[in-house]
């Protein structure tokens, strides 16, 4: 199956700072999703982005499928951005493989 590597594993930011999270995957994909798990454990779908770039407010994501990586950008971070960010690619339309995540802590 697909191997997924996320970096960095942990990240501490001061409020207002920007960050880039990276996801490398081992095989070609036709499905890649980013999720945020908040401190209460809820998983929220951020992006469906098998290729190209998408933006949603302060968050944007870029996937370069030919080079097998995806990036999640967080700008002007807020404390509510804290939690764990998961990248989940798939070689099929449905079955996702999750990385082990990047744990983000945003401090005041």
């Amino acid at each position: 199956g697909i191997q997924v590597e996320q970096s960095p594993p942990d990240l501490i930011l001061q409020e207002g700072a920007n960050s880039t999270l990276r996801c490398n995957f081992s095989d070609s994909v036709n499905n890649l999703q980013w999720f945020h798990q908040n401190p209460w454990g809820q998983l929220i779908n951020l992006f469906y982005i098998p290729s190209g770039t998408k933006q949603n407010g302060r968050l944007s994501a870029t996937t370069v499928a030919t080079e097998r990586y995806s990036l999640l950008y967080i700008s002007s971070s807020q404390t509510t951005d804290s939690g764990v960010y998961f990248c989940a690619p798939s070689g099929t339309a449905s079955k996702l493989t999750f990385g082990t995540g990047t744990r983000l802590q945003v401090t005041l």
Partner: protein
Amino acid sequence: DAGITQSPRYKITETGRQVTLMCHQTWSHSYMFWYRQDLGHGLRLIYYSAAADITDKGEVPDGYVVSRSKTENFPLTLESATRSQTSVYFCASSDLGRYQPQHFGDGTRLSIL
């Protein structure tokens, strides 16, 4: 309310007992999934279903049984619980077709003593 709900939210049971975790979605999504989340492993797929009466194994299916007699329900059963099955279990659903994101329930925290 529309969405995906899991029950119970918390469950404590003993080794050897059978336990069933429930998942219900109101979107009429074709796909449903069960994951477990353990420290150091992220989320791992246990079973998934593409439609009613169609199920298939994921990465870690041993010790689990699923069924899907109705589109909206996808129960997960641990037939004889073991301590290694202590975990947080998430159910998810997505619609059929391209560009369909997965949406998750709030999870069930299961402890097996």
